Structure formats: C-alpha cells, structure tokens
C-alpha cells in the first residue's frame, strides 16, 4: 500500500509530545515530588560561568533533563556565536563591571 504510506510521512507528533512531557514532568518533579529544587539555580549559575568567557544569547541555550534507565542526564546545549571572541587577554582587560 505504497500509495497510502505517502500520507504517513508527516513528522510523528506523538513522539514530540512525549519528549516535551518527559522534560517538563521531570523538571516539575524535582520541585515537588523528589529531591531539592536546585535545577533552576544550577542552570542560572552554569550560564553565568559560561557568560564570563563567551557572549551567549539566552535564546540559543536549551537545558534538558533526560532519564535513561536509572540515571538522569542533564543536557546543556549552547549555540556559540559565529564570530570568534576576542583573545583572552583583551577580554579579561575589558571586563571591568
């Protein structure tokens, strides 16, 4: 039934739903059902550290928490800017504030 298979090629929205839910459910549970709620603070601090060395756009940063088997994987995805940053010595000199 190749003719009908043609219609099945659309992206599978169910798997998208599941991925989105696994993240949100895991994130919300860290606050309410298990363990301390340090994930948002951890995110902020990690980003602060990276921002010290690299100009990053917050819109290009994604933080995911995945569960595989018994362990949780914190995935931090940062898109670095296209233009290379200025050399380190000058950067440290210019950062005064």
């Amino acid at each position, binding site marked *: 039934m190749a003719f009908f298979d043609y219609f099945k090629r659309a992206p599978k*929205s*169910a*798997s998208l739903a599941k991925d*989105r839910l696994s993240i*949100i459910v895991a994130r919300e549970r860290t606050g309410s059902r298990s363990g301390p709620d340090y994930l948002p603070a951890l995110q902020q601090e990690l980003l602060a550290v990276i921002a010290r060395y690299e100009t990053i756009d917050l819109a290009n940063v994604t933080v995911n928490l995945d569960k595989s088997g018994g362990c949780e994987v914190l995935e931090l995805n940062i898109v670095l800017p296209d233009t290379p940053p200025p050399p380190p010595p000058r950067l440290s000199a210019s950062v005064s504030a």
Partner: protein
Amino acid sequence: MSKVVVITSGKGGVGKTTTSANIATGIAQQGKKTVAIDFDVGLRNLDLVMGCERRVVYDFVNVIRNEAKLQQALIKDKRVENLYILPASQTRDKDALDPEGVGRIIEELKQMGFEYIICDSPAGIEKGAQMAMYFADEAIVVTNPEVSSVRDSDRVLGLLAAKTSRAEMGGPAIRTHLLLTRYSPLMVKRGEMLSVGDVLELLGIPLLGVIPESKAVLQSSNKGSPAILDETTDVAQAYLDVVFRYLGQERQHRFIEEEKRSLFGRLFG
C-alpha cells in the same frame, strides 16, 4: 469495610464525571452499596450525567451546614439497586467545603454501610479538588493522551502524595490508578497520539484501564444514563472491565490496539 475513592485529574473535560458515574454504577451493579458524591460545588453536573437532576432537593452543602439530614440529600438511583448520589450545591462556592464537614459526612456514610464512596473531584487543584481527595484511600487519575492533561495529572499525583489526610497523618500512601480516556488506537498507530505505554512511562502509576474515544459517551450524557448500562457499546465494555479489574478480577486490557477493519473501512473510515 468502606473505601473512599477520589476520581481526579487536574485538567477539566477529561472525563471525571463520566468516569464517576460509570464506575459508581458498575460497582453498585455488583451488589456493593455505593454512593457518588459531587464535589464540584457551584458547577454540579453529576446529577445531570446520572439523570437525577430533577430529584435534587437538598445537597452536600446543606448537609455540611446541618440544614438537612444526610438521608434527605441522598438520591437513590432508580435503575440500579445499592446506588446513591449526593449532589453538589449549585448556588454556593467551593469555600462551603471544609475538612471537618466533609470528614463528618464521609464518616456518616461509612456508618450507613456504604462500601464504596466515590468522590467526583472538580477540575483544578484548588479547594474543591483538595477537599475531594483529602479523605481518599485510593485515587483514580483520569488522563487524556494529550500533553496538558498528562502534565496536570502529574501535578495531581504530587498533591495526592502531600495534601491528603493520609499524607499529613503519615499513613500508608494513597493507592493510585491511571484511567486513560478518549483513547484512539488509530491515531496512536499513526504516531499522532501519545500511546498508553508513553503515558504509563511518564506518570509511573499502574494502569486501571483504557476507555476508547466514542460517541456513546455524549449519547449517554444526553440521556442521563451512564454508558455502562448499555452493554452493547465499546465504552460500556471498557468501563465494565475497569469495574471488574478494580474489584480484583483479572481482565485483559482491551481497546489499546486498533480493531481489524475491512478494506472498505480502511479506505473510507
């Protein structure tokens, strides 16, 4: 021995009242004295779904405020022996419910020999929903295979573990069951709907049953007659399975796989 069972979900419109009506009816049909309490004060609907809206004289809030006796407010179902409904008030708001009053009435229902006390929760996680779950021994979490419903169910599971009498007194945890409603095996097969496996994995509670998406639900609420009473429909079969499973019988899960359809059905269905 009485069991207090809350039917809850967080999200509205997923089938809590339909499920309360069908499960209460099904359990009563098995000879267990059962009452369904509508906790949706201000937006009562269980009476309508069960077809006894014209027989409501006194309600839950009247009894809490000692304006009527419990026996005066209980409506005996005309179709099924052992089945009673305690309607919500339509004129008050959820603040009319307080733990002392609700606790007193549940205790009184137990004294009257009710074996199953089904608490139909309002949507949301505010006072009405918290009162419905507060005295529960068990919870049936009604969920649609849809992102907002699954997220809300997870939130409700958190509340069940924290904001109930059992949690506060340090008693045994409330037993939770997942009821997946409005399920479409065809959409799941096409990858357009979360599967029962996906939802189980996300929520991590045992599956009580799957209720297929069906016109029979609307038709039965139109008539004010719970779907379970017309055994010819798939929804009735699904709810019957749920009731038997809940009462401890082994029943294989159905309505998870797409039914075999004719070529004609596949082409034009």
